[in-house]
């Protein structure tokens, strides 16, 4: 690990009781949902992690505690460093604080995570779906959401299948 990152990890271990993992030279720091805004602000202001590279989530269904990990990928342009914060989210409490006050780009990324995983962000300025239609039911990227398929139509059963095909409603 880079010694500049080592210092950050030490501070976060003391302040936010963080744990960390390393894989292929990447640093993943685990943070509690309650402290994520403070940690993001700290990294942005004290350690110049000014670029909010990516934000996404992973579903570990059927595991319940934690069921999701919300992932924040940060980049420091001045130090040329990257690190990843991971916030575990339990099935019962699908609500974590929003990061929009710290990074503007979290706005759409959080809408996308809400849309795809159903994790809500407390204090989000615009909590609507973003990619799926407004009246869509379910959250497609969850592991308990089926992928879906299309029945192939052949000459002998073309009309029979055509009747039950879910075309867009007029």
């Amino acid at each position, binding site marked *: 690990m880079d010694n500049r990152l080592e210092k950050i990890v030490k501070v976060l271990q003391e302040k936010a009781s963080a744990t960390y993992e390393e894989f292929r030279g990447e640093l993943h720091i685990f943070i509690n949902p309650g402290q994520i805004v403070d940690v993001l602000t700290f990294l942005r202001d004290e350690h110049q992690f*000014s670029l909010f590279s990516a934000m996404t989530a992973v579903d570990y269904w059927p595991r319940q505690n934690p069921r999701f990990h919300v992932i924040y*990928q940060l980049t420091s342009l001045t130090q040329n460093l990257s690190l990843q914060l991971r916030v575990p989210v339990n099935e019962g409490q699908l609500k974590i604080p929003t990061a929009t006050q710290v990074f503007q780009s979290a706005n759409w990324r959080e809408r996308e995570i809400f849309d795809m995983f159903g994790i809500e962000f407390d204090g989000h300025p615009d909590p609507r779906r973003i990619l799926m239609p407004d009246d869509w039911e379910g959250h497609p*990227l969850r592991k308990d959401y089926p992928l879906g398929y299309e029945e192939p139509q052949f000459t002998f059963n073309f009309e029979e299948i055509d009747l039950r095909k879910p075309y867009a409603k007029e």
Partner: protein
Amino acid sequence: MSEYQLQEIPVGPYRHLVSERAVSGETMLLNMGPQHPSTHGVLRLLLELDGEVIVNCIPDIGFLHTGVEKNMEAKTYQKAEVMTDRLDYMNNMGNNLAYVMAVEKLVDLDVPPRAQALRVILTELQRIASHLVWLGTAALDLAAMSVFLYCFREREIILDIFELVSGQRMMTTYFRPGGVWRDVPVEFEAAVRNFIRIFPKRIDEYEALLTNNPLFLDRVAIIGKLSAQDALSYGVTGPNMRASGVDWDLRKVRPYMGYEQYDFNVPTDTRGDVLARYLVRVQEMRESLKIVEQALNKLPIGPVRSDNRKFVPPPRSEIGTSMESLIHHFKLWTDGFPAPKASIYSAVESPRGELGVYLEGDGGPKPYRVHWRTPSFENLEVLPLISKGHLVADLVAIIGSIDIVLGDIDR
């Protein structure tokens, strides 16, 4: 009243996004798109207008959502690559590169030098092709019709090169984990040299048509200003960010695929307006051409695929003579290869900015989770900020200048 009359949108669900004046009916909510020729795909913009001045702009995306991330979870690592071409349809080679680099990082796979150099040549040609489409369409939006035709003429040469190496003009899937699909044919070098010979003069032609054209300059100068601080806060990357004065190019600061061997500049500008973004991209085409020429001059000779048989299929000639190879080939195309239960994030510089792939394996042959951090998503998010207070006609120029690809945004 005829049914084709202009219809206002009710404030209803957009109450928290519009100003007080929209509620009282003083300003007007109007749709622009999704089928508007200047929105570069299917982008719907909800505009709050005071006369012709934009008070608020609310982008509505998702019309091209195809569930690529979900679909990739159901395919093996090799098969999932086919979907990457279809994300950002102007940057197929670049998407392939981002994906195969992520897979290579996850399973720790080597890439021979010749394959690396070929990847550099082809992704840089792709960058030029993408910028040509951008230049053509952005100029077309500003009523410069002829530039569009010239740009597509040159793009055709690049697509012919892609067809030569991969058999496909756009959906190439030419890069594979561990190398490239096969070695390039003998005609490849002459075709690329031909392009290197003619293209600099063609860029001069575009610049003659646009850079010093007062009609064009009047339309693009000082509008759509984006400050460096806003660019960072909104996560804007690529040429848009460099036009705002932030010198950050992943090819330079975190070289991959041997970019450190090539001598090139990263064009930047400090003005942050539409003109600056135009100038940065035009210079980027010249720099990309420099990289292509250098890479072609020192193109190493050797294998184009790793010989790690656990991940890369053996050559056809070995399958007839070696039982081991036959087994490997069979296992790879029926089962796929397993990847460790871990996650990585790998990013490349696409023509639009940082194209990142978050890839998580679960020990099996299929990815557990793939997330595409696509640059256009963030680049579009900044549009409401930079279009505020401008005229609708300027909005067309601004959308053109941020170079969005809706396939890249909606995934």
